[in-house]
């Protein structure tokens, strides 16, 4: 079973890297959003450094949506999903591995590069590290919450828009705790660890419920 899951992970990473895959497009989109904000707000460094963590988090939420609509839809359209449904591997584990591949190509590089993007938003080193830590812990929640919407819209044409409308409200708690943990690290009355641990818990819960809910949606679909 591990061999099958390994083959699935390798396949999804290859697909992301090749023509037509979303690859590191999420990171490029993230960079575009973060670059646009200072142009819109003007060169007020104090304002930028104050709202920087929030901007980075909103950009991360939007960048996660890239590629999410094709997470299951591509496999549903060409019949690959039938291969996965008919395999001996439980569909829940299939969902977790596909989510992991999506996170490795969007959330993970995004979190890794966020200090670089923090420079554009006049972030202090402490704030950069805090945003990086919160993104690293919080983006899995975004991927797996989005995965539920991706599974529900897998067989719908133009499902991408419905997906965004469905899952963005569900991402609000992750956004709130992600930003508040990042803000807490650069000053404030709340200790950093309190919202950070809630964020970690949100991710863990999202992985479990996302896997079960997405698998149920994929079984019932068609």
């Amino acid at each position, binding site marked *: 079973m591990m*061999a*099958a899951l*390994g*083959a*699935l992970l390798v*396949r999804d990473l*290859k*697909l992301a890297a*090749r*023509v*037509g*895959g979303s690859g590191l497009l999420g990171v490029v989109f993230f960079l575009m959003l973060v670059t646009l904000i200072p142009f819109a707000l003007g060169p007020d460094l104090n304002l930028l450094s104050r709202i920087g963590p929030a901007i980075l988090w909103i950009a991360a939420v939007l960048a996660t949506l890239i590629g999410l609509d094709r997470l299951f839809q591509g496999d549903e*359209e*060409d*019949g*690959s999903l*039938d*291969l*996965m*449904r*008919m*395999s*001996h*591997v439980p569909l829940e584990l299939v969902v977790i591995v596909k989510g992991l591949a999506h996170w490795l190509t969007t959330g993970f590089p995004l979190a890794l590069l966020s200090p670089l993007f923090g420079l554009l938003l006049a972030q202090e080193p402490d704030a950069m590290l805090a945003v990086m830590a919160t993104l690293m812990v919080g983006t899995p929640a975004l991927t797996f919450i989005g995965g539920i919407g991706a599974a529900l819209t897998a067989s719908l044409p133009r499902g991408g828009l419905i997906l965004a409308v469905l899952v963005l409200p569900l991402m609000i708690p992750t956004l709130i705790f992600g930003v508040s943990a990042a803000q807490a690290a650069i000053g404030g009355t709340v200790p950093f660890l309190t919202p950070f641990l809630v964020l970690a818990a949100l991710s863990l819960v999202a992985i479990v419920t996302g896997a079960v809910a997405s698998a149920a949606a994929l079984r019932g679909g*068609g």
Partner: protein
Amino acid sequence: MKLAIDHLSCRRAGRLLIDDLTLTIAGGEALVVKGPNGAGKSTLLATLAGRLKPAGGTIRLVGDDATAGRGGEEDAPLAERAVLVGHRDGLKVALTAAENLVFAAAMLGAPATPAEAAAALDVFGLAHLADIPVGYLSAGQRRRVALTRLVLARFVPVDRPVWLLDEPTSALDAAAQEDLAHLMRQHLAGGGLIVAATHLPLGLEGARSLTLGSQAGYHDAADGWEFGA
């Protein structure tokens, strides 16, 4: 081993396409499902493959040994003992033919190396295309790559005795159709089961046929099942 379909009903978009179908296919037997467009051939295959839930009735794969499993029922559901080649061929256009097969083998339960995948492709005379992305292949070549999943069992220990084929000969040239017929005869001779939906002759002598129609009711005729009376 036999495939027992008991009082099966299938619904698609609210329409009852298959109503109260009961039949048994034994090892070494092929069932050819015929009928006009929209009669429910693909629905029947998708239901056997586990993608659609039956509206009623049961589908069981029963082992030869009555002591194996619960009352002779195989432990794994039919979907995990079957290979499906449908009209959506399950290939990723960005991956090479060999990469597609390596993934398919892993999903069918036995990991294959790229060399084994290339050897399997050779059965359909596609070894020279193993490293070409499937997006560059013609429709017939893609179909042959998809059909190669059926013969993976010769190279890696895939234990899937039931073949579910939906229009397997579409886009195939005459030589490839003959290759497929030959493979199917070998599979049946080895005790395998085949359920194929098709309009075209498959070259299987002695295959039983099931003709689906648009009205309800099936009865057991001398040469197979026919719709209506």
